[in-house]
């Protein structure tokens, strides 16, 4: 990366701006693939997607292909989807169950623990081959938290729990709300569009500002939930939370109210005994949660409806903005719910998820339209020549006054008291900058308020 490009970016970030050209710069994109997706913890999938030995799905780190599989011993594994012989991709199917993978070219065969167990005519052709040296490649680090599996190509990266910092405490509340925890239901929805991956992630960095404009049509058609709009509900975006680019919780302020994000009885009857008093206090009054985990994984938990007359159901979904190029991204969305969810509610929750956030989801379609529009002018000569800066100044002192910190917050991190801020977006940019320059770890990103 040229120093002058990063110097220009640094100057912009210090003012609460972001250079328009930086979204779709080809050199930056290639650096992102190496320095960001090639170095950080990247979300692979959830353990509940591969419940039985041999179960597998295809997943990616950046654009690189991997197999996410449970081996015969029941352990979760991640393998580079490339035969060790001549490199052909081994797994051609999106999901399934396999005890072995046999390459179509010369028949080299690997078991689902990645060991090379079959080399045709080995005695005649490969007598000296030590098969133990030729097993499938794995990323040097694979780790999970509450069933969320991440992999990293950086063998020195801190543990996932360390990397998640304060966010891990909130993941306990969201993914560990009930005793058995959350599970994925159904295959992920995948829709690509011409937007840069960063634009998608920014949406989950507490960009509360966009909601009323972007989602007006979906809300007025009846997809919105009254719970989020109730008069005593306040947004609390984090002014500081370690581990995340950003997180946000919406709380009801008229307790006692056993909301538990809308899970109500399902949560209170099956509450995880490991949760602390403070975690339960937050969960009890919570209506909405979202966060962005650097670089490109986001979580949303919010009430949604399949149609106006139906009740709202809590919909938890994990999203990944998989980069396909400087101006193209595929959005993956997984629907999740507590394992204890009764049969009659599973369908209702899935219906609510699909109507709002699936591939025909009326909420996400408008988001993707916005990101596409943001991405369109980014590779213009004009943006480069005139160094066009995009505005991320909400929450800066001169824009919105002092940060209104909510002092009674019982959890880690610092939350604002109902204030809209771009602080999370500025932090995401700084994390991105740190990763590209190597000046500091992404998690040491601090931004001026």
């Amino acid at each position, binding site marked *: 990366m040229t120093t002058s490009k990063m110097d220009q970016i640094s100057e912009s970030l210090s003012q609460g701006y972001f250079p328009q050209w930086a979204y779709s710069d080809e050199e930056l994109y290639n650096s992102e693939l190496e320095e960001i997706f090639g170095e950080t913890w990247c979300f692979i999938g959830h353990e509940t997607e591969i419940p039985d030995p041999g179960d597998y799905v295809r997943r990616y780190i950046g654009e690189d292909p991997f197999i996410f599989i449970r081996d015969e011993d029941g352990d979760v594994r991640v393998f580079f989807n490339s035969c060790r012989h001549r490199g052909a991709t081994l797994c051609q*199917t*999106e999901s*399934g169950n396999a005890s072995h993978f046999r390459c179509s070219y010369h028949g080299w065969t690997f078991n689902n623990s990645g060991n090379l167990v079959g080399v045709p005519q080995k005695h005649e052709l490969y007598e000296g081959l030590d098969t133990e040296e030729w097993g499938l490649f794995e990323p040097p680090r694979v780790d999970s938290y509450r069933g969320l599996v991440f992999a990293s190509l950086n063998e020195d990266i801190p543990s996932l729990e360390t990397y998640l910092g304060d966010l891990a405490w909130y993941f306990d509340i969201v993914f560990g709300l009930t005793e058995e925890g959350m599970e994925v239901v*159904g295959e992920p929805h995948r829709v690509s569009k011409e937007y840069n991956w960063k634009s998608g992630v920014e949406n989950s960095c507490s960009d509360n500002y966009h909601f009323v404009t972007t989602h007006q049509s979906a809300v007025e058609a009846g997809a919105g939930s009254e719970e989020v709009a109730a008069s005593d509900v306040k947004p609390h975006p984090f002014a500081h939370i370690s581990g995340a680019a950003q997180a946000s919780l919406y709380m009801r302020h008229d307790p006692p109210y056993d909301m538990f994000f809308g899970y109500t009885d399902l949560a209170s009857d099956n509450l995880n005994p490991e949760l602390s008093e403070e975690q339960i206090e937050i969960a009890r009054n919570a209506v909405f949660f979202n966060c962005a985990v650097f670089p490109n994984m986001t979580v949303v938990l919010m009430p949604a409806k399949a149609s106006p007359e139906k009740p709202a159901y809590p919909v938890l979904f994990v999203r990944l903005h998989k980069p396909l190029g400087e101006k193209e991204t595929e959005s993956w969305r997984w629907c999740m719910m507590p394992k204890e969810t009764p049969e009659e509610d599973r369908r209702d929750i899935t219906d609510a998820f*699909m109507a709002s956030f*699936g*591939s*025909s989801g009326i909420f996400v*379609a*408008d988001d993707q339209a916005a990101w596409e529009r943001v991405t369109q002018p980014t590779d213009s000569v004009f943006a480069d020549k005139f160094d066009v800066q995009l505005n991320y100044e909400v929450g800066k002192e001169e824009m919105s006054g002092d940060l209104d910190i909510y002092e009674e917050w019982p959890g880690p991190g610092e939350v604002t008291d109902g204030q809209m801020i771009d602080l999370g977006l500025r932090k995401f940019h700084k994390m991105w900058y740190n990763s590209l320059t190597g000046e500091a770890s992404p998690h040491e990103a601090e931004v001026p308020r």
Partner: protein
Amino acid sequence: MRDMEIYLECREFYTDEAALLDNWEIDDWLDLLTDDVRYVAPLRETKERRDRAEEFSAEAFHFRDDKESLEMRVQKANHEYSWAHLPPVRDRRFVSNIKVLDQQEDELQTRSNLLVRLSERDIPEDTGVITCERFDTLRRVDGSLKIADREIFFDNTNFDFPLMIFF
């Protein structure tokens, strides 16, 4: 001759239905659906065999709609600020390979292919084509055919277009 009459009636119905959707007369399209309509499209994954039971999901759907949720989608699409529909895509439907599979007193089961060609904005290379196989139950209501049930099996597993039109 009776079978040929039924076939021609179905073909006319599908031609008229496609014209309504091509011309964005989506409120009128809702009138072609029964009040208890089920309108679904399961997700598809690339598998080892071409086998509907294996490839298509039992749990995940691109949409699993009833009359109320379809009305919600139409209302959203008609909204002045439905950004996903601005500018509106120019979609055109080609229904073919129509087959009447079975018939009862007031219902028919049909199979058809649908090809939708999409033209987006002013960029020719944004042209998309979406194809699918549809299995319908058509019900005779007050003398006219209406869609009581539609199962859509897309050829694509993933899309570069949010599925904000009707198939």
